[in-house]
């Protein structure tokens, strides 16, 4: 299958600063890709290059088989900017009608689109009266116009409450199922974990990790934390058989162990029988994995 978005060895400099260095990636139809990174890691720059809004210095970028920003590419790409903004004097409906006309679609679809993002009631009010989350929804509504092949969403869920966020990802699932490729950025890994097929981590303009969440978890090989609660009076005995355990609050023992030794350690703890009152196993959090990759690069 041909890629909807194909980037190879992309380099972008702002004067002396290298904003992007040798970035290569491909996004296939129907794939949801999350681009993660700190502020200033190069996410927005990468997106603006894909959209053809800013030029780049090296490498190649192909969007729907065309040059980024070319009329053919623009006709097939939808964009949601970070902090979507619109003219405050227009109503949501008028704004969406304009965007529909600009894409050569029937402006009458405006109300349907606004209803899909839950803005039907506010459609006839001026955007100047909208909250940030409502403006974000107007932005989202305009990305749904005319079945785009590629959606570029810059921090799409910032400003949305948890319920809206869930609705938003449900919308994305529908679009991806219809074959749209989705590239979205975020600086919160927990938010994108379940709803994306692939995760890319950018750090200081370089792609430092790429893969599914399971891949990244495996590759990071971060230690698993175990919290053992001894039964009454057995704290000393347990500490003796679990070398390296650190005593914690309430007599708990804390241990870290590599993934590979996890099962052996569990077996040892289980072997202590009634001397163990409770055991908690805490896998490395998504934030830990993210920090691992985004800091590895010279920080």
């Amino acid at each position, binding site marked *: 299958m041909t890629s909807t978005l194909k980037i190879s060895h992309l380099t972008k400099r702002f004067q002396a600063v290298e904003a992007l260095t040798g970035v290569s990636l491909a996004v296939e139809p129907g794939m949801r890709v999350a681009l993660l990174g700190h502020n200033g890691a190069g996410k927005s720059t990468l997106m*603006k290059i894909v*959209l*053809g*809004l*800013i*030029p780049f210095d090296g490498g190649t970028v192909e969007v729907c088989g065309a040059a980024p920003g070319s*009329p053919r590419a*623009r*006709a097939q*790409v*939808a*964009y949601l*900017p970070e*902090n*979507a*903004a*619109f*003219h405050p*004097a*227009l109503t949501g409906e*008028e*704004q969406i*009608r*304009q*965007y529909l*006309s*600009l*894409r*050569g679609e029937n*402006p009458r679809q405006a109300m349907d689109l606004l209803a899909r993002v839950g803005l039907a009631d506010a459609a006839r009010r*001026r955007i100047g009266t909208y909250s940030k989350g409502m403006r974000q929804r107007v*932005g989202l509504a*305009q990305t749904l116009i005319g079945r785009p092949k590629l959606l570029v969403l810059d921090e799409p869920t910032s400003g949305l409450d948890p319920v809206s966020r869930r609705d938003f990802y449900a919308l994305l699932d529908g679009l991806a199922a219809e074959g749209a490729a989705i590239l979205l950025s975020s600086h919160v890994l927990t938010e994108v974990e379940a709803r994306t097929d692939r995760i890319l981590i950018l750090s200081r303009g370089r792609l430092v990790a790429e893969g599914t969440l399971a891949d990244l978890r495996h590759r990071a090989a971060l230690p698993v934390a175990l919290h053992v609660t001894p039964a009454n009076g057995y704290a000393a005995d347990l500490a003796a058989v679990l070398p390296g355990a650190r005593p914690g609050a309430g007599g708990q023992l804390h241990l870290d162990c590599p993934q590979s030794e996890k099962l052996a350690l569990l077996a040892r703890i289980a072997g202590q029988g009634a001397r163990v009152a409770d055991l908690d196993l805490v896998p490395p959090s998504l934030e830990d994995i993210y920090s691992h990759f985004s800091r590895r690069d010279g920080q």
Partner: protein
Amino acid sequence: MIAPILATAASEFRIALRNRWVAIATLLMLLFSLVLAAAGAAPTGDIGADRLSVTAASLTSLAVYLVPLLALLMSFDAIAGEAERGTLPLLLTYPVSRLQILLGKLLAHLAVLTLAVALGYGAAALAALLVDPDAAAGLPALWRLVWSSALLGATFLGAGYALSSLSRRPSGAAGLAIGLWLGLVVLYDLGLLALIVSDGGGGFTTEVLPIALLANPADAFRLFNLAAAEATAAAGGIGGAAGSVPLWQSAASLLLWPVAALALAWAAFRKVTP
């Protein structure tokens, strides 16, 4: 090709309506036109022109100042405002060319300006027709004034878009726009007058002055209307030079300037990276 321009124009017109630009421009033109019509009600029999022709000559002097000012006020925010609000990047990802965006804005702003001008002049004409039954003879002059005002407005709208693209910030664009207005509409003529006085009817007055007048869209507008109306005697100052410049030349300048201003605006807008 046309649909995106019309869609942009419809939105821009709506915004102009909501921002009270339509009301402000119309009121301003109405007010000044009626004041002029009232002032022009003084005896005019001695110059042998009907009341409306005289009013049209007065309106020309008014339009030279007011039309460029209104045009620049409406246009300075066009690109810089979108950039500051953050609406420009999204707009530029749409399958619409930058020329189409400019043409859409121009269409809307020009419609507002033409509406204001037509209503203002119309009111003055009505006043003239009411007191002077012969005033109908001045209707062609008034019609000429309306469409030449639209062309003058288009020129300064284009110039405003160019400045808006160059400065990238509304405050900067506003400063540049006021500077351009002062320069082209006020200081330019003062400078020329100073040169005429020091030249004393020499080579500058006969050779350079006509070209200098044609090079300035505001002066070309004044020349065209005064020469065409043959009411030169009713207006003083630079208007006296109208006789020395053929009508087709001032008409050509009037027609070419909007195209040149739009080309400038396009060139400047193309350089804008959001």
